[in-house]
């Protein structure tokens, strides 16, 4: 099993709902809290597991704005785990989720250097590295209703631009989306083999207009051609 997310760049409106949903769930979750620094001061900052960047593709007027959420990709070749000296970072064999054991982490930042996706953030207060857990404490929690056993970001996403599923199962919603929409992983040249995939914006066929009448109403107004229609 290879659990992960598929992000639909065709519908992501860039609202940051996934980021704050993640923040609120995880600030009280297994790596709680997600510390905020200077929250009401000059340079507010904090620990987030999911950040959304916004890009412009192409030049005006043929430009497109693309919103780009990024969180842990739960890579197949998770170098962050390979490089971790303490064993705090690990990848679960049963579902591929990459986690950081807060009791083992020494806060050396090395795993974050190994991550090309910026998925790991150090909590300076606890001195430990924190990252997306794929809401592992939701997705298996049998006290939650079945439909709520999803990552907080997926539950929240108003544009349904986030899909959660088993990328190893060809029939999962995620695998199907990747197959049908040409989903891709980021920076394949690094060979991390990220589990999370991105669906590119759809290209929509042109709407035909040649089948429409070419009549001239200017003429008709003068001729007062009316149709008999009962009110």
């Amino acid at each position, binding site marked *: 099993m290879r659990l992960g997310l598929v992000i639909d760049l065709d519908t992501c409106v860039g609202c940051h709902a996934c980021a704050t949903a993640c923040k609120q769930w995880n600030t009280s979750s297994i790596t709680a809290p997600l510390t905020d620094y200077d929250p009401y001061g000059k340079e507010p900052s904090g620990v987030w597991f999911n950040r959304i960047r916004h890009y412009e593709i192409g030049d005006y007027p043929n430009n497109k704005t693309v919103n780009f959420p990024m969180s842990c990709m739960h890579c197949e070749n998770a170098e962050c785990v390979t*490089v971790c000296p303490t064993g705090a970072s690990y990848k679960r064999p049963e579902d591929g989720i990459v986690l950081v054991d807060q009791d083992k982490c020494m806060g050396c930042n090395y795993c974050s250097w190994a991550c090309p996706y910026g998925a790991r953030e150090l909590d300076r207060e606890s*001195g430990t590295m924190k990252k997306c857990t794929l809401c592992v404490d939701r997705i298996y929690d049998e006290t939650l209703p079945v439909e709520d056993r999803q990552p907080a970001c997926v539950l929240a996403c108003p544009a349904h631009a986030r899909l959660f599923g088993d990328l190893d199962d060809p029939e999962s919603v995620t695998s199907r989306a990747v197959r049908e929409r040409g989903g891709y992983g980021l*920076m394949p040249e690094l060979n991390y083999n990220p589990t999370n995939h991105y669906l590119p914006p759809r290209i929509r066929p042109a709407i035909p207009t040649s089948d429409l009448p070419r009549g001239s109403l200017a003429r008709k107004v003068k001729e007062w051609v009316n149709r008999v229609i009962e009110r």
Partner: protein
Amino acid sequence: MNPSLAVIFLTLFSGAGFGLMAMVALVNDFAIDGGLSPLRTTILVALALLLVTIGMMSSTAHLANPKNAWRAFTRWRTSWLAREGVFAVLFYPVAMAYLGWVFFTNTDRNDGALVLGSAAALIGLVTIFCQGMIYACLRTIRQWHTPLVPANFYALGLALGMTILAASQMVVHGPDLILASTACALLVAAGVMKAIYYFWIGAPSGTTLQTATGFTRGPVRLLDQGHTFGTFLTHEFSNCISPARARNFKIAVYGLGFVAPTAILLAAAHMTLGLGVLLAPVLAFIGIGLERYLFFVEAQHVVNLYHGRMPGSLPHMHPALRGGTVRPAVAGKPRLVPSYEKH
């Protein structure tokens, strides 16, 4: 990358220490220039241990949660950082045994000294390799992901170690052409290696924001990075240096790190400079320290692309991001209790 002093000192001082240990063993094993006296060996090995210790101590300052530092050896099967830790720790008993052996037997020419000295040197050299591989194994940082990194670490560590050794010898004994020229040769070699590295990192990289986002059909520009101020990522990764400033730094690296020590050592090989010869290792430390600063600050983590940083470009970003001004944590800093916790 963030040029954290802790990591600069770690690699600089421990590299010099391991280099010194290696050169002591080499000189003694092969009785180069007649070898060192037991006393001098003792002093130099102690110095090597001190340098390694300074490096190791400063590395723990880099840890946000040092109470778990003891766990750093557990993943030696996969992690170069763990391996570095293992070998660095292994270095101590062997180097100290060598030190003790030489001190108590008052000779550095017997079999025991040979074995222990060579073993300590070898472990030190392996540790330098591990140190280099900590950086070289990262595919995320193009400037580091090269065999040139461990090669450079070797060249610089050995050059520093030999410079210390030669200078210390000449402070006491006056001109020593063999040791001085060995040190000079190592310094020149290190300088050449570093030049190769600098040329290599100047070559363009294939990964761009376009390939990183998958939008390769047109220009891709950052509209908004999704946070106004710095984050851990910008603090850790967004340091950079302008090409002009980097050039000035490199002049200093070569002037202080290679040219001046070589000149001093060559002069000392021909005339008595007294304590003045110690300027050679001091300047070498400063120069190679600057080199280490550049090593970090020129390294561009691939995640910077997502923040709109093209390779080699200086960011137009919020001033707070340019220097990565997220303040470092201060342990035990008094805090106001958040309002919600009062109820």
